[in-house]
């Protein structure tokens, strides 16, 4: 709830240009560390400190990746996986937020549902493969459903935490202005839970990806998950690394995108709602 405030302060203390410099600086460091990691990895392999067979090496991965990209179905796989992930991510986040916020309406309903949500989330999806196939099939939508089911609960619980932290005096204030419950909901509960919901977005990236990959492990015709599974089957660990790398980049891309959404949303609540 303090986000906007902080932002205001910063702007006020004329750190605006400073913060722009800061973010450039950050970017530089991020890249630098990334490059260092990669160089270290490559060097480690070349010097024989780590086993090339298991660890592959950045150059091998790039080579293999290029081969997959040009000669094989990498792009198609990537589109499939990222499509399902993003779909599931969006669905899970939106519906999770709705569920979490809906808990504000009834404490009883919230208290009853919460443990069921957690228990549901604890079920190992991969282990349920034979049943899940029946339930959600093997197509694109089954991947979406799994990505959704991974993210929805995290978001719901985060939103619910946000709901629990609302300043009751703020609610009181609205009632003094003749507000109905839905007013309080839209004008206080939603904006002041938003930072909590946003805080779940980052983790949801990883979870949505995990959901899609598990879905592809269970049954698939395409996707990075299937590629990894296949690579493992034929002991092509380089290809496994290609898959892992591509997934990491997908995660980083989504991370970057979530950052933009986050800033946009915070600006939005900063404006009015």
């Amino acid at each position, binding site marked *: 709830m303090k986000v906007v405030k902080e932002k205001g302060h910063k702007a006020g203390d004329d750190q605006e240009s400073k913060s722009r410099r800061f973010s450039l600086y950050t970017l530089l460091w991020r890249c630098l560390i990334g490059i260092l990691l990669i160089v270290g990895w490559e060097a480690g392999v070349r010097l024989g400190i780590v086993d090339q067979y298991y660890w592959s090496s950045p150059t091998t991965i790039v080579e293999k990746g290029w081969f997959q990209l040009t000669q094989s179905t990498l792009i198609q796989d990537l589109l499939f996986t990222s499509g399902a992930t993003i779909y599931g991510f969006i669905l899970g986040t939106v519906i999770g937020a709705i569920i979490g916020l809906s808990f504000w309406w009834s404490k009883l309903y919230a208290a009853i549902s919460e443990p069921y949500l957690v228990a549901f989330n604890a079920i190992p999806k991969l282990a349920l493969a034979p049943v899940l196939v029946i339930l959600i099939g093997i197509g694109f939508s089954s991947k979406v459903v799994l990505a959704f089911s991974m993210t929805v609960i995290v978001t719901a619980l985060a939103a619910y935490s946000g709901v629990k932290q609302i300043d009751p005096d703020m609610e009181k204030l609205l009632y*003094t202005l003749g507000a109905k419950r839905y007013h309080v909901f839209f004008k206080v509960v939603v*904006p002041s839970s938003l930072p909590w919901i946003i805080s779940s977005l980052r983790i949801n990236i990883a979870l949505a990806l995990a959901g899609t990959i598990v879905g592809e492990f269970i049954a698939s015709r395409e996707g990075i998950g299937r590629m990894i599974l296949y690579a493992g089957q034929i002991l092509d660990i380089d290809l496994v690394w290609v898959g892992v790398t591509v997934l990491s980049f997908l995660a980083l891309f989504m991370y970057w995108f979530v950052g933009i959404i986050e800033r946009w949303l915070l600006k939005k609540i900063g404006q*009015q709602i």
Partner: protein
Amino acid sequence: MKLEIKEVGKVFQKGGTFTEVLKPTSIQIDKGTFVSVVGPSGCGKSTLFNIIAGLTKPSSGDVLVDGRSILNQNGQVGYMLQKDLLLPWRSIIHNIILGLEIKGMNKKSAIAQAMPLLERYGLKGFEHHFPAELSGGMRQRAALLRTFLYDAEIMLLDEPFAALDAQTKGQMQSWLLRMWEDVEKTIMFVTHDIDEALFLSDTIYVLSARPGSVKAVLSVELERPRSRDVLLTTEFLEMKRTLFNLLAQEEKEEEQSEGGERKGT
């Protein structure tokens, strides 16, 4: 009788300890009168207001408006809380029109209605700032303006001018009186400022130290409309002395009662 507070009392419970904050208290307020409530800090003034506004359940008693109970009903009275409670994610102008928005007015016309008033409250030029960027006084004024725009027949104002500088305070008081005379609202007002209470009110209720109860009721027989000159009249000084003594006495009793409470805790 516009507003009738009937034997309203409140006991808070903390752990196993019960603290009586407000003894059963009765207050009657006629339509269009201006009533102040004064009393030592912690004597339950805000609690009483919370009860009238339907935010807190009283332990006993009832609150009637035009003979109809409004117990535990929201939005029946305008209420400016002691804390400013501006929503930190809304700009000042959007905070101010909150009540209008809730009434269903569209944003544009709400803003159009509020904008001209900003100057009067010294908020001009700050409409797009966020609460955290304003000084304490400005925040309080924004909260006051929000309450006024809500435009209820009965208004409860809990130390609205406490954070203002002397000059602004005086202006706001005069302005409040003008506004009130124009529109015939019924106002209940909490303040710690004796001058303020006398200058504004028809009737002053003096509450005793916690647990609060009506210790004295003072009628302020000054002519209306009042100008600030009235503050220098002997009549005014006489009443000021009376009120001061009443409160001083309370203060002493409070110390005793606090001592007593301590043993109980």
